[in-house]
C-alpha cells in the first residue's frame, strides 16, 4: 500500500490516537475555493483527506453529498479535474494521505490502468469505489497495486461472519466500517454497536479500521475514536460549504469548514483510548 498512508497510521499508533479522516467533494463549490478548503483541512487537524470525485448518480449518498456532487459538476467538476486539484494540493503538502472516493463509472471511462497511473501521478494514496464490491474489484485492484495505491474495502452492519473474510482478503490501506445501514450522513450512528463491530473486525485483521457514514458530532466521534483507528466525517463538513453557498458567502467556506474540522479533530484526538489497540492479533 501507499507509504504515505502506512506512515501516517504508524505515527498515529505510536501516539496512541485515532485519525480524523475529513471528506470533501472536489471542486465544491468551485476549483479555487475547493483548493483552499483542502489546504485548510490538515491545518485544522485532519489526519487523512478523503477527496470525493463527482458522479451524477451517487446511489450511496445522502442529500448533503448529493448536493455537493451537483455543485461540483456545475462548476465543471470531473474525475480528471479532481486529480488536477489533488496535484495542486500536493505542491504544498506531501505528507497528508489522500484517499479518492467515488463511483465506478468515471473510473471505468478513464480505464483502470490509466486511472491508476493518473491517480499515482497526482499523489493519491488510496481509492474507495463505493459501487465496486469485492466480487467485481479484481481488475481494478490489480491496476492499483501496480501503482501502490490502496483499494479500501468496506464492511457494513449487513456483513456477517461468513462475508467478512471475503472482504478482508485483498483489502489494503484500512478497512472502512460503514456504521449504519443507509446513505451517507442520514442516520446517526449508534456508538455502542459500532464499537462492537470495530472490535469484531479488528480481531480478524491487522489493518487499521475506520468508521464512517453516521458520524456528525464531537460526542459520537469521540466515542468511536476510543476503539477505532480512524473516524470519517463528511456530511458535517460538506454542510458548512452548503451553508456558505446558500448565504452567498463562498469565500467563508474554507474557514467555516476548518472550524468544524477542528471541533471534531479535538474530539477524536482527545479520546481516551485503551492501550495496545494494535496488538489485537498477535
Amino acid at each position, binding site marked *: 500500500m501507499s507509504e504515505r498512508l502506512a506512515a501516517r497510521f504508524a505515527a498515529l499508533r505510536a501516539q496512541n490516537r485515532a485519525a480524523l479522516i475529513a471528506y470533501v467533494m472536489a471542486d465544491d463549490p468551485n476549483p479555487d475555493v475547493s483548493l483552499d478548503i483542502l489546504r485548510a483541512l490538515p491545518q485544522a487537524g485532519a489526519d487523512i483527506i478523503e477527496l470525493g470525485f463527482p458522479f451524477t448518480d451517487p446511489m450511496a449518498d445522502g442529500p448533503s453529498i448529493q448536493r455537493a456532487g451537483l455543485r461540483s459538476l456545475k462548476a465543471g467538476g470531473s474525475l480528471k479535474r479532481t486529480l488536477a486539484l489533488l496535484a495542486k494540493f500536493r505542491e504544498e503538502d506531501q505528507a497528508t494521505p489522500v484517499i479518492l472516493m467515488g463511483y465506478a463509472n*468515471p473510473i471505468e471511462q478513464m480505464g483502470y490502468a490509466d486511472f491508476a497511473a493518473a491517480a499515482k501521478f497526482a499523489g493519491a494514496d488510496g481509492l474507495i469505489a463505493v459501487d465496486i464490491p469485492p466480487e467485481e474489484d479484481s481488475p481494478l485492484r490489480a491496476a492499483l497495486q501496480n501503482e501502490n495505491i490502496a483499494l479500501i474495502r468496506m464492511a457494513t452492519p449487513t456483513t456477517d461472519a461468513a462475508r467478512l473474510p471475503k472482504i478482508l482478503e485483498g483489502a489494503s490501506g484500512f478497512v472502512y466500517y460503514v456504521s449504519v445501514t443507509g446513505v451517507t450522513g442520514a442516520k446517526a450512528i449508534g456508538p455502542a454497536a459500532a464499537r462492537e463491530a470495530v472490535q469484531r473486525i479488528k480481531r480478524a485483521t491487522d489493518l487499521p479500521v475506520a468508521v464512517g457514514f453516521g458520524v456528525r458530532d464531537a460526542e459520537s466521534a469521540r466515542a468511536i475514536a476510543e476503539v477505532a483507528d480512524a473516524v470519517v466525517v463528511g456530511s458535517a463538513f460538506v454542510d458548512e460549504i452548503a451553508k456558505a453557498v446558500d448565504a452567498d458567502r463562498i469565500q467563508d467556506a474554507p474557514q467555516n469548514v476548518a472550524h468544524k474540522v477542528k471541533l471534531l479533530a479535538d474530539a477524536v484526538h482527545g479520546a481516551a483510548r485503551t492501550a495496545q489497540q494494535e496488538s489485537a492479533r498477535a
Partner: protein
Amino acid sequence: MPDDLRTWRNLPDENGRFGEFGGRYVAETLMPLVHDLERAYREAKASNEFRAELDAFLRDYVGRPSPLYFAERLTAHYGGAKIYFKREELNHTGAHKINNCLGQILLAMRMGKTRIIAETGAGQHGVATATVCARFGLPCTVFMGAVDIERQKPNVFRMRLLGAEVRPVTSGAATLKDAMNEALRDWVTNVENTFYIIGTVAGPHPYPELVRDFQSVIGHEARAQHIEKEGKLPDAVIACVGGGSNAIGLFHPFLQDESVAIYGVEAAGRGIDDRFEHSAAIGGGRPGVLHGNRTYLLQNEDGQILEGHSISAGLDYPGVGPEHAYLHSIGRATYLSATDDEALAAFQLCGQLEGILPALESAHALARVGDVAKQLGAGKSIILNLSGRGDKDIFTVADALGTTLA
C-alpha cells in the same frame, strides 16, 4: 458461434455476467441482500409449488395467455411478411409489467419481506407494483421523479387509488434514473424488511435474470401460438427496448432458434447525435456502469450519466438491460431505432388500421415492423410485442399533434 449458441440460454454465469456485461455493482451493504435474493430465487425457480401459484395468478388475475393476433390490415398495408401482435396490452393493468411484478411479489413473500418499494418513470411499473401490493396486502412505496409526477398525473392517481405511497424524488434530474437511485437508497436504509421490485431487466444480478425469466412467459406463449397457427417458427421477432423487459421476454425463448431474426427498437427521440436528445443506449451510447450492472449507457467523456429524451416516458432511460448489450455485442439481435415522429405516425396507423391504440413504447417497434416485414417478404412471418395499450398516452399524443383535450 456454435459454442456461443449452446451457452446463450445458460446466461448469466454465476457472477451475473452476460459476456462482459451485467455483474453486481452495488454498495457493500447491499451485497448480502443480492446474494440472499439469488439464493431465494434459485429455490423458488426449482419449486413446483411456486410455479403453480404464479401460473394460477397469471391465468386468473392477469388474464394469460395473451392472444397472438394476426394484424391482417397492417400486413396488407406493408405488403410483406405476415405481422402478428403478441397482445400484452390486454393484460390486467394494460401492459406486460404485471408479469414481472407478480413473480417478484410472490418471491418477496416467500422471503418473508413485509414492505415493497419500486421505481417508476412513466408510472406503468409503479401501477403494476401498486396493483400486486394491493392484491397481496403489502405496503408499497413507489419512487417517482418530481418531473415525471407532473407529466404522468393519471398514473400517480392510479397508484394512490391502489393504496401506494408515491414518493416524489427531487434529487438529480428528478426523473426515472433518479427514482432508481432513491429506491436503492431506501433499500440500503431498510435492509431488514424491504423487497425492491425492479421494473426492468437492469439492476444488479440476479435482477436482469429474474425479470427476464418472469417476462419470458411472453415468448414461450408466442412461440407455441405461432407454431399452432402457422405450423412453423416465425422468421423474426421485434419489440421496443428501453430497459428492455418486454423485449427480452419475447426474445429469450427464441435465442436458440437460429432461423429467427431478433430486432430491438430503441427510442431515437429527436435523432441520435451528440445532442443526446434520444434514449438509444446501444445505438448512441457506450459501455459503462450504472445501477448495479455494466451495460451501454448515455454518458459524457467523464462517465457522467446523461438524461436522454423520448416522447415515450417508458423508454426514457439512459441505460439498457445487460443481456441486450450482450446480444448486440455478439450479433444475435439487431438494434434499430425509431424517432418520436416515427413512433407517433405508427401510433396513429395502428389505431386506424387495426383498431388498437398502442402504447407509445410499443409504437416504436411498430415504426420499424414495416421495414422488417418488407425485407422478409411475403410467405414469412414476424411477431411484434404489443407491450402496452395507448390510453395512458393520449394526452402526450394530443399535445404532439397540436390538439387540446378538455
